[in-house]
């Protein structure tokens, strides 16, 4: 009361402290919610199959073992499937980045009469669901002989019609729009052509957008079950993780039976339906694992890229 200045400072400090406190609790709690299922899955993957029948095991396995992982990887045909998924996602990521970056640049920096009308088509590709198109696309690809081949996915990605390509074009467009005009002008004065300007001035400056789009293009292709199913890309010779996982999850017992996974464990274990659910879980973890590891490596770039993705209307 005697010193209002001191009081105000104290109350501001208290406010600041409570803000930090509430924020920390919220963020820590939400991070826990996010990480909780994954941690749980990892711990479940590492328990021995016999622990399924052991009511004492809740979190920490009593007998550590990689048996579950072994069985799940047999069910998924893991070695081949991971390689194929990497190949499919990697190539389609590069194709998608190329086609959407070019289109995004043209829409933001190389404007001409009617380019805004064309951009409405980009928005339309975002809004129209793939289901409305896939039958006609299927018949189209059947005529081209692309059904059952990875080429169908590459063709879609390369022509800017891959998974959510419209959003990538949108991201690139807003990013290139946000780059200062002076960059382009100074490059022009230095005698660089339009392509040189794009390739050696604008693109290196667009690293933020490139990282974001690249990550999403890879991840969404990796997780994609829809197009892969429609175009029958996953075959016996070319197994993909998503389709193997979905097929296994639909009938885990059959999947275990046909791949010989049952021989690795006793009857008392595989008769337990909880065990089948457990293997299903471990399979899901195995499918996500390469993505998680990859994310660990690019995560810093990705998080930093948000700071530079400054979206401008």
């Amino acid at each position: 009361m005697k010193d209002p200045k001191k009081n105000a400072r104290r109350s501001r400090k208290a406010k600041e402290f409570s803000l930090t406190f509430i924020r920390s609790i919220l963020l820590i709690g939400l991070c826990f919610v996010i990480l909780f299922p994954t941690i749980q899955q990892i711990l479940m993957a590492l328990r021995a199959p016999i622990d399924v029948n052991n009511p004492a095991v809740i979190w920490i396995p009593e007998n550590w073992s990689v048996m579950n992982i072994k069985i799940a990887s047999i069910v998924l045909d893991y070695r081949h499937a991971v390689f194929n998924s990497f190949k499919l996602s990697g190539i389609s990521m590069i194709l998608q980045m190329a086609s959407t970056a070019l289109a995004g640049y043209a829409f933001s920096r190389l404007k001409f009469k009617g380019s805004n009308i064309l951009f409405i088509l980009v928005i339309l590709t975002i809004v129209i669901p793939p289901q409305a198109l896939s039958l006609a696309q299927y018949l189209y690809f059947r005529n081209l002989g692309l059904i059952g081949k990875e080429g169908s996915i590459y063709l879609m990605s390369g022509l800017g019609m891959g998974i959510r390509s419209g959003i990538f074009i949108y991201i690139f467009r807003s990013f290139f729009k946000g780059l200062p005009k002076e960059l382009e002008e100074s490059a022009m004065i230095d005698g660089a052509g339009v392509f040189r300007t794009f390739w050696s001035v604008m693109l290196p400056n667009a690293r933020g957008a490139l990282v974001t789009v690249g990550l999403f293009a890879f991840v969404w292709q990796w997780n994609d079950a829809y197009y892969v199913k429609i175009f029958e890309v996953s075959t016996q010779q070319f197994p993909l993780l998503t389709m193997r996982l979905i097929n296994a999850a639909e009938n885990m017992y059959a999947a275990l039976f046909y791949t010989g996974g049952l021989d690795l464990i006793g009857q008392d274990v595989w008769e337990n339906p909880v065990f089948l659910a457990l293997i299903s879980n471990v399979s899901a973890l195995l499918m996500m694992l390469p993505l998680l590891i990859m994310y660990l490596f690019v995560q810093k770039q990705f998080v930093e890229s948000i700071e530079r993705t400054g979206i401008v209307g």
Partner: protein
Amino acid sequence: MEDIKKTPKLPIKLPKMTYKQQKLFWAIIFLLPWAIGILLLFLVPFIESLRYSFFDLTPQAGEIVKEFIGFENYRYAMNTHVTSISSFRVELLTTTTDVLINLPVLLIFSLFIAVLLNMKFKGRAIVRAIFFVPVILNSAAVVSAVGGGEAINAILEQQGIDRIFDLEFYLLQTGMAPFLITFIVGLIERIYDILALAGVPILLFLASIQSIPKHLYEAAKIEGATSYEMFWLITLPNVTPHIITVTVYALVDTFLTSSVSTIISDELNSQNWGLSSAMAWIYVAVIILILIVLGAFAKLLKIGESHYEN
């Protein structure tokens, strides 16, 4: 600029013209792959599938037999269609109402998280990295394998712990209105789903917050504004232009991952092609209708118009 003035002999005008022409030339080249794609893989299938929806298509050795049946597919989809657990009409209705209820929650939640993540604090990079993990792990295949956590719950239940903390019971004790409790408990149980759905919206909001000029905040700070005032007077008005983007994304995304989508895919896979096309078109009509309504709302409330530039 001064350099150019000093050397008037340089034929500035001529290269400028060609530069413009060059721009058009490269614009065509840059857009070529996309233009081919949009023509062959979007517009043609788009019209074709609209045509299919009026036909009864039956596959026969190597070809497809078409029979024009008018709006029969649409009628069937809306009135007669049933699956083992539900029907197209019911799923469409629940998805639509769910979207309309969840969309505001999703928008507010993701904006709130984006503001939190934008603040400066220790370990910000780690928290941000963790928040985008659900975006990475959000996959239909994983959901089908994990069974929406049912498998885990089955294991936990078998071991005698189904819930560590019974929130619903606790809230009932406080004497809260039951409908409010179901809403809150529902939200909390779905928090992982919401977080997964909110990943990209958070990203979009965060990017738009980052693009707000820093000097606005500095000026406000000098004037003695609190962080609360800064949020309402600087952050929010500057973010509103992007609310439309986020809404469109969230709307399309929730519909894409909804059970309506699954029904359409299932019909497609069981070769009821005309029917699935008709369903897809009903779905498109619903989304566009919602977008138009939201757009009108936004116009009415002047959301989405830039606060400073106009």
